[in-house]
């Protein structure tokens, strides 16, 4: 391949004035830059496509295999629970996609060296960090909510045939559907925090998936063996357990999980508290990540 270059570079006076007059660094522009970065990587687009596919596919699968024939008519509460469950069944899987996406979006800049271009353009660094987090959160929330609502709408006619009437306009159902999207968004941000701290794709993904998948299981086993209250309480504050409350209706026992233990010392969170716990995780990670980004050499 031959590359030919113009005879001489021509940053003429008029052009100088134009470029100089219009340009200035500000946060809105950094957000725009991060948005361009997000939509111009194939890996990101693929992850979002998988995201939508998983949500719809699992919802459909559950809806078509659901069979109430012969049973008694379902009460309204159960119908609501079922509507939410079908629409958010994919979350167990898409949370992994959100985690990978959150890590890659920042670790990818470190592993390729892109971060040096980013910090050269935005030398205060933190605006780039927050703009990237903002774009990630917005895109994840919109895609999550879109795919969850789409799943609910697509499966509504199928469920109606099974005696589950559309409950989509019910306040509690809407809260749970939005909660599902909110949960995925916060998982993506949690992963983003780890990615920014570890600056490494494999390490970041392993850490987040460990926290979401492995730690709850380990604590669950520990709790079963020891029956220790503090282990159960600790478990309640894990991101996945606290976050699961955001998209559950009622006590969640309908989901087939163990009945929520009740005892004077055992902490049970409601949806809002679960949300706040997850937000606290993200805030702590972001503070650590921001401090490191400011201090470390790029």
């Amino acid at each position: 391949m031959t590359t030919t270059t113009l005879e001489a570079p021509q940053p003429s006076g008029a052009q100088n004035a134009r470029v100089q007059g219009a340009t200035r660094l500000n946060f809105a522009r950094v957000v725009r830059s991060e948005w361009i970065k997000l939509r111009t990587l194939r890996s990101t687009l693929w992850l979002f496509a998988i995201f939508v596919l998983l949500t719809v596919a699992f919802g459909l699968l559950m809806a078509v295999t659901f069979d109430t024939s012969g049973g008694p008519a379902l009460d309204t509460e159960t119908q609501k629970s079922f509507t939410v469950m079908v629409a958010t069944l994919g979350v167990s899987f898409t949370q992994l996609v959100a985690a990978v996406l959150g890590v890659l979006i920042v670790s990818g800049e470190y592993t390729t060296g892109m971060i040096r271009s980013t910090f050269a353009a935005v030398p205060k660094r933190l605006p780039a960090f927050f703009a990237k987090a903002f774009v990630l959160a917005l895109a994840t929330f919109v895609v999550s909510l879109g795919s969850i609502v789409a799943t609910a709408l697509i499966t509504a006619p199928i469920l109606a045939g099974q005696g589950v009437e559309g409950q989509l306009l019910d306040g509690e159902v809407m809260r749970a559907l939005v909660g599902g999207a909110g949960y995925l968004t916060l998982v993506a941000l949690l992963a983003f925090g780890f990615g920014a701290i570890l600056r490494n794709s494999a390490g970041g993904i392993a850490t987040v998936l460990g926290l979401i998948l492995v730690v709850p299981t380990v604590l669950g086993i520990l709790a079963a063996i020891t029956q220790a209250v503090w282990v159960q309480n600790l478990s309640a504050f894990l991101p996945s357990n606290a976050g699961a409350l955001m998209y559950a209706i009622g006590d969640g026992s309908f989901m087939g999980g163990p009945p929520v233990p009740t005892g004077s010392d055992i902490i049970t969170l409601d949806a809002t508290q679960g949300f706040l716990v997850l937000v606290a995780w993200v805030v702590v990670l972001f503070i650590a990540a921001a401090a490191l980004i400011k201090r470390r050499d790029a």
Partner: protein
Amino acid sequence: MIEIQGLTKRYGAKTAVDNITATIRPGLVTGFLGPNGAGKSTTMRTIIGLDRPDSGSVTVNGKQYAQHHNPMHEVGALLDAKAIHTGRTAYNHLLAMGATHGIGKARVNEVIAMTGLESVAKKRVGGFSLGMGQRLGIAAALLGDPQTLILDEPVNGLDPEGVMWVRKLTRQLASEGRTIFLSSHLMSEMAQTADHLIVLGRGRIIADAPVSEILAIATGTAVRVRTPQAAELANRLSGSDATITSIEGDVLNIAGLASAQIGEAAAQSGIVLHELTPLSASLEDAYLELTQDDVEYHSEVSR
């Protein structure tokens, strides 16, 4: 204008840059020369705040780089041609970089044309050759129409046409009153491009002077004289400070005297001269002379 004041940067126990002070002035091409590991890249990275100095300060046009409202218009830097996400196209990379400062498609297309990247602009950077990566890095550096241009090994991987182009580009930008600071390990390239040289060895400045002066300091000047009366001329000059070496029968290398002095002395003694040529040492020679004690990694050619 870049002002470096008492800059020190350590990586663990290793001191990469050791208390250097220098001013890189506008309107000139300043070359930054030194063996591998001398601290050139580290110094350049601290200028745009990618590395934090352990002590000392670096300012660009009177302010720290990060304090400028329009950083890409103050400094354009090519520090590492690989500082680009391999999954993105060249065009989208430039678009995203420019977007931070409100620089739009028109300017992106301009720098693509300036750097000759039109044919590959829509291709992903992962498949770029070293030379194309280098051109893209330079394109990114030029995006903000910067007052100060910092290029770390810009001709690395470029074909001869590209090398010529970088030389023209830097000369022209300097003539517009901009500050140009470039490093290179190609000393001959520096001789043709730079006005001023800062020579670095093991994190310290060895020389900071105009190119011509560096040449003179390092080796002095010698004059080649061709004459059928070589022995007579050698005799005639033997009383002076001149150091005379005979190369062939009728050729003498005379150091320590200007060609005018030699010519006049020959005329007075009626000695015929066939050639009288001032020899300027190559920058390579000067450079090796300056840095021979400061090279971190010696290569042993023969043992």
